[in-house]
């Protein structure tokens, strides 16, 4: 698990790429047979939790990475004060609950990557992801996420065959990875103002945490 991380650049459909330059997706497939020690992940989350304080959360939105996601939310129709970007949401939940917690080690690893870098990472069941790989595009007429009919023009994470998630939204439950999924596909979404290095780092941190590193 050490050394260079072999991530792939996801596709961005031309109409999306030309309108929203800087929007991109990086992803990788990962075997998770060597299960991370849930206690180690919890301990790491406790350490991170101690670093989050009220004043820091208030000032968070002025830092470059968080600012970039907030700007992207505004530019694409979301209100970041209503639907917070993932890192702000995690920090706010930490303040309200008093701790960072995750349902399993996989989601704990994703949370570690998010809190450390500010870049959100999601996990899909790799067996549900087509070999062509993941990317970002707009929905067309009559497309669905699971059972839900989507309005045309929504931005989604998909492959050649199916839609896996709404961009910065929910994942298709039947494609979502959990603590027992043997092979996962991790993906991180970057926006204008977020350097590639941060996406790589977020994916690397998640894989390290999953490997128990």
């Amino acid at each position, binding site marked *: 698990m050490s050394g260079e991380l072999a991530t792939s650049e996801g596709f961005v459909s031309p109409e999306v790429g030309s309108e929203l330059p800087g929007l991109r997706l990086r992803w990788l497939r990962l075997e998770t047979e060597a299960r991370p020690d849930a206690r180690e992940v919890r301990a790491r989350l406790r350490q991170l939790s101690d670093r989050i304080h009220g004043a820091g959360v208030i000032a968070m939105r002025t830092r470059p990475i968080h600012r970039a996601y907030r700007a992207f939310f505004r530019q694409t129709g979301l209100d970041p004060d209503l639907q917070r970007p993932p890192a702000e949401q995690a920090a706010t939940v930490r303040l309200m609950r008093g701790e960072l917690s995750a349902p399993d080690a996989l989601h704990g690893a994703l949370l570690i990557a998010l809190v450390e870098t500010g870049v959100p990472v999601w996990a899909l069941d790799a067996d549900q992801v087509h070999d062509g790989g993941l990317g970002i595009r707009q929905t067309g007429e009559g497309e669905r996420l699971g059972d839900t009919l989507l309005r045309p023009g929504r931005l989604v994470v998909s492959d050649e065959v199916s839609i896996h998630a709404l961009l910065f*939204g929910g994942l298709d439950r039947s494609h979502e990875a959990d603590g027992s999924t043997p092979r996962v596909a991790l993906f991180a979404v970057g926006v204008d103002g977020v350097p590639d290095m941060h996406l790589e780092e977020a994916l690397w941190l998640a894989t390290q945490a999953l490997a128990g590193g």
Partner: protein
Amino acid sequence: MELLEWESARQYLAPPTVLRDPERAARQSLRSQIARLEQELSEAFVTAYPMGVVGPVAVAGARREVRMLDLGELERARDDLVERLRAARAAIAERAEEHAANRLYLERMLLEPGKHRFARLSRSDIGEPGCGDWQVRPRLGLIGMLMGWWQVKLSSGCPLP
């Protein structure tokens, strides 16, 4: 001379390349404005929060889906941010004026306590963090009241939880 005139006229005749798709250029410009306004609003929020000014209020009923906005929607998003920023700055300025007026009043309390009997100001009233109240009180209780011996006392520390 003719050549110069032609060169001068040509710059108006030939449209710049950025105007080939003016609507797209307008959308990009609006997105840049939105990013800048969002940054300014965030900075205003960080300034306003410790002053006790309520932060940006989310618009109820706003859509919760990520999509590419058209020109009109981007304009509305930009205008909404302009309005919120204006309101935030006005609230900050109003609170800053209140703090300045209270600081002046505190100086008067300290200079002439007898003219401000039992007046009370807290740290938050002058924009300072922490707990504590300045209060004009009589020295030696009832005797001080009768003799006109007034002083400003600062209570210290926050109450224990």
